[in-house]
């Protein structure tokens, strides 16, 4: 069945929970305004179950109700994994056999973002979720530049290390910082290197939309909960097998 609806406690009931603040003080009109928004979002009927004024001019609302929209799971667009998941052994074997040299990976957290836990989870031996990071792979040469790396530093390091792939992490997303930084990075690589010399550009972080790769000028985006194995498999698929 490709058409589904949200489920509260009965198939097809369409129930959802919504909360938000409006920049108006709390009164009946504000409650009506909240219900207006819920209606515009497709909730019918919508029950306003909580309203609380905050400070002088804001009110927080909680609304429960049924949405009229249908979800068509056949029409969902997702970036599905289009490469096989390989073990570390298989990755090493493939690189050794086909590339005949180590595959060079340069990683960094660019801009003023200092969140290294995510990129370290992918790169460091320690890894994450029981999987070892890329440094553990014998046939991968990993250069982890750490955090707060500027784009020119990154491009220079990529050239110095003859990077096959550049892995960039972005965790801070306020005011779309991650998008700005990614665009700046991909543009710099385009400028510095001809297409055939350009390393594979990969970005990751918990709040990326994986379908935006094209728009951001990178080859691939990895989101929440990525594991090192997925990344290694992808690199081999792109750089060694095809």
């Amino acid at each position, binding site marked *: 069945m490709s058409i589904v609806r949200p*489920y*509260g*406690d*009965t*198939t097809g009931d369409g*129930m959802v*929970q919504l909360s938000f603040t409006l920049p108006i003080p709390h009164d009946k009109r504000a409650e009506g305004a909240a219900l207006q928004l819920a209606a515009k979002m497709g909730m019918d009927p919508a*029950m*306003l*179950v*909580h309203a*609380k004024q905050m400070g002088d001019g804001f009110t927080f609302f*909680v609304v*429960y109700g049924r949405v009229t929209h249908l979800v068509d799971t056949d029409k969902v667009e997702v970036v599905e994994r289009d490469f096989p998941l390989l073990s570390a052994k298989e990755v090493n074997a493939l690189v050794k056999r086909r590339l005949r040299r180590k595959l060079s990976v340069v990683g960094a957290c660019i801009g003023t973002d200092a969140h290294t836990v995510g990129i370290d989870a992918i790169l460091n031996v320690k890894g994450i979720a029981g999987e070892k990071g890329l440094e553990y792979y014998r046939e991968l040469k990993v250069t982890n530049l750490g955090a707060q790396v500027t784009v020119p530093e990154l491009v220079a390091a990529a050239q110095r290390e003859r990077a096959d792939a550049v892995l960039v992490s972005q965790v801070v997303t306020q005011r779309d910082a991650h998008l700005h930084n990614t665009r700046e990075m991909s543009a710099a690589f385009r400028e510095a290197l001809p297409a055939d010399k350009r390393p594979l550009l990969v970005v990751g972080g918990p709040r990326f939309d994986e379908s935006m790769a094209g728009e951001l000028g990178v080859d691939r985006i990895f989101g929440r909960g990525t594991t090192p194995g997925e990344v290694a498999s992808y690199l081999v698929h792109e750089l060694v097998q095809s």
Partner: protein
Amino acid sequence: MAKLDLDPALVSRARELARRAGQPVVDLARSHTTVSVERAVLRLAGVTGADPDGIPWVNRLVDAVVDEIGLEHGVALPVFDALAREGLPATDLTLLAQKAAAGSVRFGVPTGKAATAARKVASKATAVGIRAVDRKRAERDRLIKRFGDPKQRPWIYLIVATGDIYEDIPQAQAAARAGADVIAVIRSTGQSLLDYVPEGPTREGFAGTYATQDNFRLMRAALDESSRELKRYVRLTNYASGLCMPEMATLAGLERLDMMLNDSMYGILFRDINPIRTFVDQRFSRQVHARAGIIINTGEDNYLTTADAVDEAHTVTVSQLLNEFFAHEAGLADWQLGLGHAFEINPEVPESFRLELAHALLARELFPDAPLKWMPPTKHMTGDVFRGNLLDGFFNLAGTMTGQGILLVGMMTEAVVTPWLSDRDIALQNVRYVLGAAGGLHEDFVPAPGGFIQQRANQVLGEAITLLEKIEGDTLLQAIADGTFGIMKRPPDRGKGLAGVAKHADDYFNPATDLLEAA
């Protein structure tokens, strides 16, 4: 592990007062019967099914007897006498009911040999039903042995309430998988006032699913499947409450339900059911529960939804003591007493959490061997679901810190809807966190000697004793009429179902009671 420094003499005095206040009600129950008690007897004797309008044959049969000769003799004698006269075997009791409904059977009270014969067949037939209950109890014991009990206390108790047994089942199984030890299927709002038990699997309840024998069976089977999968016996609960309390208990015994909501006063206070009807029904239902190895859950938590949880805390204690007395009198053992109480203090009250701890510990120490049923906040839950989940967390914490036996899991949407699938999942996650992270905290919880918690607990006990003294003087029926519990005033000559009550005639005969009391 006594943390409250309660005076044992005071505790004994409280129990003795409860016994004295309760005894007249027991005497009342022993000398009366109700239509539902009689129907329960017939169910044990093997009457099943319903007429084309959905009215159970037990109702048709009892009604036919009552129409002709009244209720005061009990139905067993006239029914088995008629059966003999019709030349039917005891296994054809349902056929007799159908004939009676069609008006083709006459009833009378047999005497002499006919009476002796009817009594004998009646007892035999009823014993078949009771043996069925016994077999279910043994089966439960076996399954518990095989699958095991929950690893932790408190047991985690979750409700499902979609109104549709076929939505309830997958939700119950999902809940069990997510950690529920006990599943309660909430009943439709209307059911407790029905003077019959609906038949068949049902899909149309309001804010709850009809309690029927088929629904019991379907859900128990589904949970047996879950028990096998989870290697943990998942218990099932329903309600022996309302006008059909004795029959519900009987059906629960026959379908291996494991716990039943069964309070001595809930129906009186919150369903406006006649007090005498309730006390009579209650005694019979508890005798069945005792026999069936079912744990009862009492309803003191409800008082705190209409009365203030601080001011009226002692009424909970009084009611627990009364429920304990009635339960023991009916043959229930301590391990079957899921006495109720609740986390219902207004969260704005200073030190409200410590007051909750004091109240919960008081119950714990007064009833050390009972698996207390700890109920979550409901009254002070609002549409602010974020706050709601927090309150539920503190409720869970109080539960583990004070060693409660059965934890009814609170839902963040308490003030909004009957629980959604996701509410239950979030609530269970909350329980798992609290029990996992602070399951041993009770070791470090030592109420300061003479401090806030000890003082409060002793104060509530003192108030409970004062109230019990008053009740003993005035009678319990008068106290109920005065609005002592939950501020609901319920005089003994009012309320629903009074018409279905009769004082025993001298020749009153009830083979089920005889068998249950003989044990």
